[in-house]
């Protein structure tokens, strides 16, 4: 696929493809003199599940920061939901963030607030009325299986449960994009697979998911598009033809992903 070369190439008129929710066009990102992203170009159509992989320091997190407009390209252009990085003011960033859900390896929950308050907060930010917040909380917490634990503080939950709260928080405002940065990094393989399943379910509802991981086992279990990065560059961008077989048992998929029978039999 050919990407426009400069900022003047029609980008200001909007995305090249109306289905494109994220577009990277010859993007460089440098911290001081260190290049974290080097001439990266790719687009993500609406509803895609994209797996971003590569070793630590490959530039995966920088790609996510660029999508969240937490960092801005030193060269090139990033387009997210029709908003261009070159035209993005700091004041507009919160508006963009409300259309993106975030899930992190370290959960990033508000530690001093209950599960329910964590979910409520993102809704208060966008101005959802109280009655609607209560209904939404019930819906998402039931979906992630934590409604009974809604009054607990994050530290009173297991790692997997905390990650499910983070996912509930990410999906409650029905974001168009979900960024998951090593969301399974702190979890055991079974819980990790549960989290991945949850992300697939979110993707099924039409949300584009960008899933970053350095775990090859997890990547292998994916039947979706996988971008491999190294030293800030894209080394491969492969769209797998065979979709993941959701009918395969969790135990089988875990075995395929990890190659460890002890986990499966546990």
């Amino acid at each position, binding site marked *: 696929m050919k990407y426009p070369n400069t900022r003047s190439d029609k980008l200001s008129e909007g995305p090249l493809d109306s289905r494109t929710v994220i577009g990277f066009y010859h993007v460089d990102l440098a911290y001081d003199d260190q290049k974290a992203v080097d001439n990266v170009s790719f687009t993500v159509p609406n509803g895609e599940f994209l797996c971003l992989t590569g070793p630590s320091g490959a530039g995966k997190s920088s790609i996510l920061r660029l999508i969240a407009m937490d960092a801005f390209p030193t060269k090139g252009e990033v387009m997210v939901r029709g908003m261009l990085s070159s035209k993005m003011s700091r004041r507009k960033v*919160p508006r963009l963030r409300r259309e993106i859900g975030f899930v992190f390896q370290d959960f*990033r929950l508000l530690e001093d607030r209950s599960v329910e308050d964590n979910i409520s907060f993102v809704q208060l930010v966008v101005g959802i009325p109280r009655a609607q917040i209560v209904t939404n909380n019930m819906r998402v917490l039931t979906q992630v299986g934590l409604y009974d634990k809604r009054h607990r503080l994050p530290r009173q939950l297991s790692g997997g449960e905390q990650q499910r709260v983070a996912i509930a928080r990410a999906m409650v405002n029905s974001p168009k994009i979900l960024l998951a940065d090593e969301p399974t990094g702190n979890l055991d393989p079974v819980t990790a697979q549960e989290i991945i399943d949850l992300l697939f379910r979110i993707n099924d509802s039409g949300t584009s998911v960008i899933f970053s991981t350095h775990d090859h086992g997890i990547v292998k279990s994916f039947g979706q598009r996988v971008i491999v990065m190294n030293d800030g560059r894209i080394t491969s961008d492969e769209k797998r033809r065979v979709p993941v077989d959701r009918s395969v048992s969790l135990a089988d998929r875990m075995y395929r992903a990890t190659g460890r029978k002890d986990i499966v039999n546990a």
Partner: protein
Amino acid sequence: MLNRAQSAHLIRESFAGFHRRKLTTGVTILIMGSALLVLAILTLATLNMGHMLESARAGIDMRVFLNDGLGPERMAALQPRLLAIPGVQKVAWISPETALGQFKEGLGEDAEIVDLLDANPLPASYHLTMTPGARNQESVEKVREEIAVWEEVSEILFNQGWIDALESWTFRFRMASLVVGLIVFVAAVFVISNTVKLTMASSARIIQIQKLVGATNAFIRTPYLCEGMIQGLLAGILAMGLLAAAGYVLNDRLGGLVFFTGGQIAGFILFCVVLGLTGSYSAMRKYLTMQSEI
């Protein structure tokens, strides 16, 4: 425009910090209160010293002795002329008899000596009291110069040494107040600002997460600013309460101690609220401009 849920959230969050960070908030208020107490003590000391100096200045007066042989009408005519001089507040006529009585009173047990005199040697005089604004060396000197040329006047006396000393002490006191006040003020602001920053540091991660989920800076900042204002208010009340208690105890021993008026107390507490607000605002800026560390 905020909806009801958002407004309720911001109000609740403004007070929630006190519950969530009991120890940090308690220590912050204590440190702020101590710094403000030092500032209040200095302000009160300045106020009392100023009051004492002003009382001392009230003693600045002038005696205008008249020549012998002036008729009562001529002497009486001097009174309006003296009152018309700028800086003169009050003029009191002292007849030779009154002057003698005062003199005898001053002699105490030796007053009988005066009875040995054949005639009253004391001249008639006027006692001038200066207006508060004219109780200084320059103004007194001007009045003296104006009266000295009058032919009815034989002598003018005023407490030159006292005025000189008072002028010198007033200058030194003002300089010392200014320097010490400035140092204490800067120190108080520094201590308060750093204490608030410490509170903020404990909330840095929470602020980052709030930014990440799309909260605007104003939405994040408002509860912290309110919290800073409440902390300032409580610290101000603490400082003023401690000072009032100390003043109550010391007043019996020192007597005549001047305390802040209601308006001054309100002003001081308002100053503390503004201090808490600005401390929080400057501390917040650092965290709001930080990146989200995705």
